[in-house]
């Protein structure tokens, strides 16, 4: 077994742009679920709409900052459309509506009649929209390597995407830390516990839930941009499974914590890579083919999630007394 290669692959996942994107999306979901108790099962919809917004604005020749604003504005509008009819209702209705709404975004995006705008089911090729982002890079052209990590400075899957992605994760963690300790975060926590009690104290619960939905969705949209930058905007790769990976990450790291989503994302992607590369080396191809091993990797992730929910429902960093999945 080639351990150097395996460990290089695993180490690559730690700082991969995808890991950063999922961490950001999970931070957004943490605002929904961990802080406010909103069951959003459509985080992938926010990510996809953000990716579309950024890519389409960039292709129209808009500068990067304006394209990012377009992505965030799309998420705000999406959150308003979702929230206005559902946030007055209780609990589970939001989850039903969000999962359906995320599917609507994906299906509309891949529909043939919108091929001129969204590229239909082929999506938007990376090269068509990431030029302006790559031009912003202050790094010199070429490659740079440190330890197991060696990437080009400015191309698709580059140091530049990694730096921006993880800087955004750090910024998100800082703001979430401030919000969680603030009176605003306290009202959200109260809503998570019992919204009628908060209402009886004179707070506008509907407005706070809307703010949380919009804020978390905006994090999701930015995550969608980071996710799309090293590859392309592909609607079918940003469907329901993506939402559930984000949930897995949040529950693994620990909801209602600042670093839980980051730790969860790093753990999920490194573990998955470790399982896949080791199995590919030890299992002969006559027993299992490469793509079957890929699937087995996900089976093991599912198993891990089940064990986690049963034995450590608060996640790795969570406080059981504060927020745990009630399994018993």
């Amino acid at each position, binding site marked *: 077994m080639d351990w150097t290669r395996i460990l290089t692959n695993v180490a690559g996942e730690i700082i991969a742009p995808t890991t950063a994107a999922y961490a950001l999306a999970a931070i957004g979901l943490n605002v929904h679920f961990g802080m406010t108790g909103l069951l959003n099962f459509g985080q992938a919809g926010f990510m996809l709409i953000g990716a579309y917004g950024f890519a389409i604005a960039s292709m129209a020749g808009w500068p990067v900052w304006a394209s990012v604003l377009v992505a965030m504005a799309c998420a705000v509008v999406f959150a308003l459309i979702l929230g206005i009819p559902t946030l007055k209702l209780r609990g589970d209705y939001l989850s039903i509506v969000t999962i359906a709404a995320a599917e609507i975004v994906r299906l509309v995006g891949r529909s043939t009649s919108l091929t001129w705008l969204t590229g239909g089911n082929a999506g938007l090729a990376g090269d068509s929209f990431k030029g302006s982002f790559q031009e912003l890079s202050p790094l010199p052209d070429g490659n740079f390597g440190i330890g197991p990590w060696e990437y080009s400075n400015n191309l698709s899957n580059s140091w530049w995407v990694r730096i921006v992605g993880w800087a955004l994760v750090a910024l998100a963690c800082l703001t979430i830390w401030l919000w969680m300790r603030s009176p605003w975060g306290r009202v959200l926590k109260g809503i998570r516990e019992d919204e009628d009690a*908060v209402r009886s104290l004179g707070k506008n619960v509907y407005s706070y839930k809307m703010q949380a939905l919009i804020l978390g969705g905006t994090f999701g949209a930015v995550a969608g941009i980071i996710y799309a930058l090293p590859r392309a905007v592909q609607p079918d790769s940003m469907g329901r499974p993506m939402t559930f990976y984000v949930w897995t990450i949040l529950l693994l790291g620990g909801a209602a914590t600042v670093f839980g989503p980051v730790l969860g994302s790093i753990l999920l992607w490194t573990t998955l890579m470790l399982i896949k590369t080791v199995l590919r080396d030890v299992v002969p191809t006559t027993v299992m083919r490469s793509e079957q091993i890929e699937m087995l990797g996900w089976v093991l992730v599912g198993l891990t999630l089940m064990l986690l929910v049963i034995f450590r429902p608060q996640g790795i960093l969570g406080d059981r007394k504060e927020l745990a999945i009630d399994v018993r």
Partner: protein
Amino acid sequence: MSAETPAPTVPTVPAASRKAQVARDLADVPHAPGAPKPDAILVAEDVTRTFGGMTAVDVDHVEVQRGAITALIGPNGAGKTTLFNLLTGFDRPNTGTWSFEGRSLGRVPAGKVARAGMVRTFQLTKALSRMTVIENMRLGATHQPGENLLTALVPPLWRSREAEITAQAEELLARFKLLEKKDDFAGSLSGGQRKLLEMARALMTKPTMVMLDEPMAGVNPALTQSLLGHIQALRDEGTTVLFVEHDMHMVRHISDWVVVMAEGRIVAEGPPETVMQNQAVVDAYLGAHHDTDLGDDSLLTDDVAEQLEAEALVEKEQR
């Protein structure tokens, strides 16, 4: 706004004589349903609420005297809690208007009702169990700029108000004997302590009127006395109290005025000493044993209970 905001304007009367003062004010009020009060803080008109074919609340007119402790009693299913929910904005009426301090509050959402100064507690206590006691209290405070999404990110903008709120919360917790529990999760408190916490949290909003939905339900006798004391203290500080209660002993003990509901209507009103003798109350509420004092502890002995059961049986057979 600062923590030194004056408490709701109180007539300059020493606390000890507030009860006497209220009794004098209410002395001339007729003992009849919908009686007008000399200084009504809450006036409700023609309030109805139906669930399907069932009329839960059908109140023609009711007024609540400012600064008094008014008890709302009635048999199970009389519509007391539904009326509470309507008045506090937690439910929508089919018809009806009501005003609080001269301001119309019909169909106003619950949060706004609370901001207007009418704050309620719940029959099933809503302590926010996975928050600490002190955080529960802080949540009740008003005018915290840090509750705004953007201001929240700049702690210097809300820290001074937070310190004031914390001081106010600790003072109230000390009064309700919960101060040593302030860093515990509210979920770890006993049922009675949660009732106390809920009441203390409601007081954080500095309400003009508190609405207590069965404040004594599930509270052990040792805490009952202290809860009664707190409710009377509220009145003595000038806060209006309206409460729903089943415990006649308590109603008799602390209320200044009693409103009796049955089958959604208000059937009688009067001071606690005499309202129980009202024929409508006897018919609707007390049934066959109208001549026994429900607040009498001797009722709890086995002998009396058996005797009552026997009488009830005879009555049933006669039907």
